């Protein structure tokens, strides 16, 4: 069985989503399997059109900081979150949406980008993947 990386995406912040997707895509590129488990504020990013909507975790400054960061990233030719997510799925990455978060935050399946989601699960889904993982992170 291939090695695996499992990452809990609990934050919805833009920079943290970048970290999660870059690490996950790196893992897939180096021959590992990868799962992203979206929970709490992370789940907001799986809403339709929500992927790029996260704030910066520091120096957001009501959006000015993010604007500055986005323009710097554009200059450095950094891929968009949309592209990173597309690559993640194309390379066989698995997305799990936390169904308890959906319940407590009133998130319906219809409001989520269902085409990205492989599974709706609870902690057991995370442990099931994590126990077979060489790398597991909480972001």
């Amino acid at each position, binding site marked *: 069985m291939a090695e695996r990386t499992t990452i809990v995406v609990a934050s919805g912040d833009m920079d943290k989503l970048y970290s999660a997707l*870059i690490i996950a895509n*790196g893992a*897939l*590129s*180096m*021959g590992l399997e990868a799962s992203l488990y979206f929970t709490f504020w992370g789940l907001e990013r799986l809403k339709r059109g929500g992927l790029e909507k996260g704030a910066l975790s520091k120096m957001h400054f009501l959006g000015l900081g993010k604007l500055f960061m986005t323009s710097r990233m554009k200059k450095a030719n950094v*891929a968009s979150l949309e592209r*990173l997510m597309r*690559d993640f799925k194309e*390379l066989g990455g698995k997305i799990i949406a936390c169904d308890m978060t959906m319940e407590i935050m009133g998130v319906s399946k219809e409001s989520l980008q269902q085409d990205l989601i492989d599974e709706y699960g609870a902690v057991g889904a995370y442990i099931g993947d994590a126990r077979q993982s060489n790398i597991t992170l909480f972001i």
Partner: protein
Amino acid sequence: MADIRIDVRYETCPVPLVEMRKAVRRAEPGDIIEIAGTHPASQKEIPMAVEALGLELLAVEGTPDAWTIRIRR
């Protein structure tokens, strides 16, 4: 002569690595893949990935900021 050529010049982390992986998935066993890039870290990490994937590294040419890597699936 490469069977698949990828141009990831001016692309940054993790795009060169990801595009290499996508090309490997497209390739047939025995195909030669040539990747051209300018991101210095990728010049080091693509050979690491090639080893991890059990592929054959044929050549790493050029400089860290203008390189060509050839691999065989």
